[in-house]
Structures are given as structure tokens and as C-alpha cells.
């Protein structure tokens, strides 16, 4: 299934030639979870990353579906 991934902050450096305006189009196995996606991207889930979809912070076990727009952030502690 196809999903779209947007990376923020320093996580962008993980992907060579990442284009912030486009994001990443990815084709991942049906039934993949957020944890699987993070593994694919080489981003450690703990303590590093937070995944937000449609305004909600999602648990790592959450399943993705075709057409999902996934935003991935560092864990932040305030400013």
C-alpha cells in the first residue's frame, strides 16, 4: 500500500535528498504498523520519535492504511 511520510526537524537528514515540500511517497506491506515504518526509515522510536496523523499522536502498534499521511517528529519537551 502507498503512504506519504513527512519528516520534521533533524529527522530530514536521515533521508538523502529529502524534499520537504513533497515528503516521501512510500510503498509498504499491507498491514504495516507505525513501529514497522519507523524501522524501515531507521528512526528509533524511543526516545526519539513521535508520529502524528490527523492531529493525533499515535501508538506504535497503530496500523497504517493505504493513503495515510504520516508526520514524524522528534520528541520535544517544550521551549
Amino acid at each position: 500500500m502507498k503512504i506519504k511520510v513527512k519528516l520534521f526537524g533533524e529527522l530530514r537528514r536521515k533521508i538523502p535528498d529529502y524534499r520537504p515540500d513533497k515528503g516521501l511517497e512510500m510503498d509498504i506491506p499491507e498491514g504495516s504498523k507505525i513501529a514497522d515504518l519507523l524501522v524501515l526509515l531507521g528512526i528509533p522510536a524511543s526516545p526519539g520519535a513521535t508520529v502524528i496523523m490527523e492531529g493525533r499522536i499515535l501508538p506504535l502498534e497503530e496500523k497504517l492504511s493505504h493513503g495515510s499521511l504520516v508526520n514524524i517528529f522528534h520528541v520535544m519537551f517544550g521551549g
Partner: protein
Amino acid sequence: MKFLRVDMSSKNIRSEEVPQSYLGLGGRSLTSTIINTEVPPKCDPLGPENKLIFAPGLLSGTNLVNTSRISVGAKSPLTGTIKESNAGGTIATALGHLGITAIVIDGQAVKGEMFILRIDEKGEASLIPAKEYKGMRTYSLVDKLIKTYGDKTSVMCIGPAGEYLMKSASIQTSDVDDHPCRAAARGGLGAVMGAKGLKALVVDRRGKSPDAIADPEAFKEAAKIFALKVKENPFSGQFLPNLGTAGLVAAVNSMGAFPSYNATKGVLPGWENISGENLTKIMKERGGGPGHMGCAQCIIRCSNVFMDKQGKYVTSSLEYETIWAFGGMTGIKDLDTIARLDFLCDDIGLDTMNTGVAIAVAMDAGYKKFEDGQAAIEMLEEIGRGTEMGKVLGDGPAAVGRRFSHLRIPAVKNQSIAAYDPRAMQGNGVTYATSPMGADHTAGNVIGQYMARKLDPLKPEGQVKASRNAQIAMAAMDSIGLCILAAVALEAPEAGAAFLKALSAKLGTELGADAIGQLGIRTLQAEREFNRKAGFTNKDDRLPEFFYKEALSPHNTTFAVTDADLDTTLAF
């Protein structure tokens, strides 16, 4: 270990040993304990009975990284409560090197008179008439003071807003580059300084009489481990040096918790323009940039320098909260305008949050249009000139709301909220409501709990506990003098142990694991006791009504923590 007591009425300066009852305290725990003990709770905050206290943290002046924080305390003219306002820069370290635990300013100069309090490299203090500096804005003031007193000088000062006794007046302090861009911003303490007749505190950085460290070897060892852990933590080690706090713009918008257009929306359409990612890009193109060292002893470098299109300095340390107040709340989606507004606040001596929100309330009330950057700049200049409207704006959002009979005022105890909407981050709402300081994100920010998937930000459950823990931790950090951005590293057990060891080695007592929490609790207790004596009750610990009634998009939630639960937050 000494106090400098300065009486602005008699101009008498007295140096004394730290009294027994204040031993072991520093920073916020010290300012709050002194105020609770020595300031009449019902006094006029702008009268002679109030005290303005400058206290570096317990570890400021040591070699531990990121310990250059200073607490400024007084009864606040904005909130009417006890207040601690925290700033970075270089002055806490300078005071630490002189072995000065606190400067307590008492009394009041004759109206219209202004003084500078200078402390030389031997720690000798003197009051110098400051007629020539009256009315000066902070950048030219600091320039002049450094020319007069030498380039090894740290300054803490007020601008015109403090002299006009405005309730959003900040106390600005010089950063590593001698720009007065760091602020003890909150609570209108600049007005307290202005009322005392003190234009600036000028401290020589060459002091060589720091308090002894009880066990220097153990301290050195622990400090080394702690520094490593700060570097290892992805937030303090990688994220902040590259994006600064502005990196939060994207995340908080994505969570639907970015109060926009005077807190009528939770997402700012077009936030990408003012994101940390865009800010970094612009700064790198123009020179300047992120990764700037704002404060002495800092190894994180969350600060930045913003240049205009011609490569000329505009401002430094353009922070998330400022970008929100002038961008999100007003709908101005242009970093050049926001940077200019940030500079003007620093120069006039204003809290960017209280001022940005005041402007947003004025826009919401129809005084000017949302998104009008030029109007915002003109409003700030009105504050700088002290015009009639400028005085209303300079007193913050509640004053503006009263002026226009406008009810949507995102403030608690007259102090504006920060860049996290309580309807979409309920725990931060608990902090705004219950902090003894009025709405204040630095008093106990819960966002880390949400992003680490430990708590659902939209549900009321668990928020009181999260806010309580954060408030205790912050009160302790503000007392020890550790920058809260370095405090995130304490999550790692090894870092926590090293930090406790460093503190024990400094104080010469083996502190137990709960000592830091106890320091925080003791501080909050003193603060709440003062507020109660000043006439505050639990009923004051509430959010403005609209947060309970107007649902915030996109989640369409209201603030849902009950009053009964709020009242348990700090009921130690």
C-alpha cells in the same frame, strides 16, 4: 555566600552573610522564600515595601554546563501573586563567580530619580545616578554601559516600558554577545525595577571569589558525566542546536494545539511559513543562524541570530513562544515582521508573550485587523512612546480586554497563556490555572509526556498528576539554576544520578533521591502560602470561561479538568 541588601530609599548598601534560615536555597527557592518571609503580602507591588530579588541558581558559577540561569523575584504588579521570572545570559555566572547568593532591592528612590547598581570585580557594590540613561531603550543602554564599564560586564536592565511601570515590562539581560535579548520577561517585574528607581544592574564578570565546592573532585566527575548526557539526548544534543525552540511550531500545529487568531483556532493555516524548519533555512541563507550560544556555560546552543535580507542583525534568540505570540495569535505569517517585533520588545523591555497576546486581543476586538504586521509594529511603537493606547497595550491582554469590553482574554491572573492551548493540551491548562505564577508554560510544561506517548493530551485523565510533577521539577530546576532545556537529559537515570551527585558535592551533604523534588515542593509551598496571604483562593486557580465553553478546532474539545481535580494539583 552573601546577600547584598540595597535600600533604594536611603541608598544604603549592606553586605551580610546568608541568614541561617535561607541556607541551602538558591534561585527561585530563595527569591520565593525571601518574599514569603519578608514582603507584606498585601503591599502595593510598585511601592517601597515590595522587594525585588536577583538570585543566581544554586549551581550558577560552577563548571556544570547550562547553569547560567538567574531568578528574579518580587510580588508581581501584573498577577498580584508572588513571581519568579527566570532568565539566561551571563549575569548568573558572573554573580556566582563573586560568591553573591542574592541581591535584595528594597525601598524606593524619589520619583523620577534613576540609578545603576554596579558591582565591581571585587564584589563591591555602588549606586550610581543614571540621569543620562533615563528613557533609553535597552540596546543603546547596554552599548553605553559596556563602553563605560568595560567589555567584561553583564547587564540586567529595563527599557522605557519598565520606566512607565507597565505591567508587561520585562527585565532584559545581556547574552554572550552583549545583546540585551534574554529576558526575565514574565509578570511585569520590569515595572517593579522601574518603581524602585533602578535602571540597570551592572556586574563585572571577572570575579574570582566563588563559593567553595565542598568536594571538587566528585563534582568534576559528576559534571563530566552530566555534560555527556546532555549531548547524547536527541532533543538537547541535536534538535535544539539545529532548530531552536522554534522547532515546536510544526509539532504543536500538527497536534492542533497552537492557539491561533486569539485562541479561536488550534492550527494556524500557513504555519509552515513561521516554522522552525523555515526559520533555520532563512537564517542560513542570510548568515546568522541557529546553534547560537545565548548563555554562559551552554553546550546546547538553542539560541539563534536573525538577520534581515541585507544581512544586518535584527534580533537574537527568536523563540517558539515569541513566534507564536506574534505569529499564531495575530495571524502574521512573516518571520521578518515577527523578528522585528521581537527586537522591539527586547529594546523597549517587554514580555513578548504578554505583548503579542495583548495585540491579538486588540485585533480580535476589532481595534486593528488580524494579520496586519504594520499595525502590530505601530502598536509596539505606541507602547515605546507611552501613548494613551500604548499604556493599555503595555499592561497586557487583560487591560486590553477591559478597554474594549472584549471577553476572550487568554490569560490567567492577568498573565497571558503560552503557545499550548489548554483545550488540546489539557495538562498545560492545569499548569496555567494552578501555577502560583499565573499562566506560565515554564512553570510546568507537559508536552514531553504527550510526545513520548505517555499521556493523551485531549483527555482530562492523568493531567493533574503530570502538571504537578512538572511544576515540582521546574521549581527545583529554577532553584538550582539549570536551564530547563538541559533538564530534559535528566530523564536518563545516569544523568539524574550525576546531577544529584554534583549538587551533593557542591553543598557538601549526601542528598537523597527525593531531595530535588523536596526542594521543588518546598518552593511551591512558600509561593502558595504567600498568595493565600495576599488574598488568593482556589477559585482564582481557574482558566478563563471561554476555554470551558468555546470548543477548539480541529479536535473540538474544551478544557475538561474539573475544579475539584484542579484543587488537588498543589495541595501538598
